[in-house]
């Protein structure tokens, strides 16, 4: 039954409905896969087979009684460790929260449980989601299933690698500046950052509250839509949650049609600084869409040039405030300085021991950007750039239905290659950051392999706020066109993982 791991969530749902398999069989197949390959990939920080199988058994009993909770009842899911869970530890990739058990579930976790999905475990991530490679996890890096010497992207490298390595059909991620979309690009998978407020952030350990958004990580566009349909919607526990009624995203996939769709190519993200193989696959995808009736035009968003700089002022500022709660009082690590000390000395010793280098760097940077005398020059200026980026998008979306760009400038780099220069890694976020600054939704889907290194490349589409359905329409249409052209899925080209490589 190991073939169960290669099925999409939609296919598994059909098999469960038809009674040709059970949730226990599916869950066991994925747990076996995790046991076989996760020693090499290290996508998971925590797995508890007993808890997962108990949930699977309960699902099978519901189905046998003719009362499944949803179409996806019984399908397994991996959960990024940034989301708090009552039955598994939640660390956000940090030592300061090692072993911490949350007294409540994140709203998205509650929603997937209420739909009957079976949590498999918690996935690895850069500490507090600060990073683009998962190398900043306090628990060691995740490795790219396409090449174990390379990064899986970040911060959600664990969730992306888990679905790419067939350890889970679905995963939850969080996207603050590209942490869902960039790992999708790097691992040949699908990732969606919903409209800000479209999915509840309650129980997501906050990095930068005005950028963070939770979303699906999957192997197919339909699976992302199905998961998005489960987790979307208003939550009174999140005061930035939108009260909108959302259309069915799965229907948007099923009715995909790009005839007459106006696609704007972002000039600033199509050329200098982008790897040739990334650009080649991007333009190939655009040609396919054009041949299917889409209209392709160029648009300019001049403020994007400053978006990365502004982001890396606003993010540390918000993070320095959000991470103040890790103070050794209510949860997490407590370190006593030698000979004891006051509560403030205990806090300082705890945060010194509990935070990694990247987290300290960003807290100090944020504290600086917010401090008296520098606030206007840095944080204040960055907020103005945010306005300019939002105006650029508003202008672009008055001319086109969706925007397109490569998801990131390069394919997966080697582990350790960019660790010495923090600013270099930040520049890799240039294509994904602008969506977070404007709160708009984005999707990354596989566009092929780069000629020069044979590694996956993604294409990104962006839509106006609240128009997430447009992403599922164009993403599903392109996915079908590409797979028809290739004769297979992109992930089927990944080398086979046998386990025990490391």
């Amino acid at each position: 039954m190991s073939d169960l791991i290669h099925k999409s969530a939609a296919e598994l749902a059909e098999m469960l409905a038809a009674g040709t398999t059970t949730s226990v069989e599916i869950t066991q197949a994925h747990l076996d896969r995790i046991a076989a390959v996760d020693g090499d990939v290290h996508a998971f920080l925590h797995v508890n087979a007993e808890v997962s199988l108990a949930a699977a058994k309960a699902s099978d009993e519901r189905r046998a009684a003719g009362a499944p909770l949803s179409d996806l009842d019984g399908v397994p899911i991996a959960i990024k460790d940034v989301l708090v869970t009552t039955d598994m530890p939640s660390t956000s990739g940090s030592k300061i929260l090692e072993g911490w058990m949350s007294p409540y579930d994140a709203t998205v976790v509650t929603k997937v449980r209420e739909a009957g999905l079976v949590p498999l475990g918690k996935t690895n991530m850069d500490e507090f989601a600060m990073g683009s490679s998962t190398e900043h996890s306090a628990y060691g890096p995740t490795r790219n299933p396409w090449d174990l010497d390379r990064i899986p992207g970040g911060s959600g490298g664990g969730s992306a690698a888990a679905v790419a390595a067939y350890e889970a059909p679905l995963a939850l991620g969080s996207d603050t500046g590209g942490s869902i979309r960039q790992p999708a690009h790097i691992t040949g998978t699908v990732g969606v950052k919903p409209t800000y407020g479209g999915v509840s952030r309650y129980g997501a350990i906050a990095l930068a509250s005005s950028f963070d958004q939770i979303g699906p990580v999957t192997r197919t566009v339909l699976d992302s839509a199905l998961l998005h349909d489960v987790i979307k919607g208003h939550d009174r526990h999140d005061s930035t949650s939108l009260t909108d009624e959302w259309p069915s995203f799965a229907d948007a996939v099923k009715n995909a049609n790009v005839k007459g769709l106006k696609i704007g190519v972002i000039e600033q993200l199509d050329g200098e600084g982008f790897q040739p193989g990334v650009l080649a696959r991007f333009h190939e995808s655009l040609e396919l869409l054009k041949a299917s009736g889409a209209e392709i035009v160029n648009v300019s968003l001049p403020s994007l040039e400053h978006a990365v700089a502004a982001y890396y002022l606003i993010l540390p500022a918000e993070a320095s405030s959000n991470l103040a709660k890790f103070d050794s009082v209510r949860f997490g690590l407590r370190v006593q300085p030698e000979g004891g000390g006051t509560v403030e000395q205990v806090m300082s010793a705890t945060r010194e021991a509990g935070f990694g280098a990247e987290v300290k760097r960003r807290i100090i940077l944020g504290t600086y950007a917010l401090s008296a005398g520098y606030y206007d020059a840095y944080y204040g200026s960055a907020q103005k750039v945010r306005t300019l980026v939002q105006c650029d998008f508003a202008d672009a979306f008055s001319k086109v239905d969706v925007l397109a760009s490569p998801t990131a400038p390069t394919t997966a780099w080697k582990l350790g290659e960019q660790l010495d220069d923090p600013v270099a890694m930040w520049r890799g976020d240039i294509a994904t950051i602008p969506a977070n600054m404007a709160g708009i939704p984005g999707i990354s889907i596989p566009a092929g392999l780069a000629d020069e290194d044979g590694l996956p490349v993604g294409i990104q589409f962006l839509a106006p706020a609240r128009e997430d359905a447009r992403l599922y329409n164009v993403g599903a249409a392109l996915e079908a066109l590409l797979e028809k052209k290739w004769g297979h899925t992109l992930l089927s080209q990944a080398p086979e993982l046998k386990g025990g490589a490391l």
Partner: protein
Amino acid sequence: MSDISAEQVRHLANLARIDLSDAEIATMTTELGQIMEAVASVQAVATPDVPATSHPIPLKNVYRADVVADVIPTDKALASAPEHDGSRFKVSAILGEEQ
């Protein structure tokens, strides 16, 4: 503007309640200088006529009726605390001897 001294970093670390070692302060002083240079370009376009934006989607403040809801019971709230006395979080002395 981006000339950052080790003394400044030490002060920032104190504000952020992180006991940085001397080696960490030295590294971070260099890095912070490089980072501030890399992000200084925001000042060039942030002219006085551009309003600042703090949020991606315009929202009004959210209110709810003042009724008790979703309270986490004390034992659950304390379960993962580094130290507690059964009803409260326990911490070290708030004031030092010199205070």
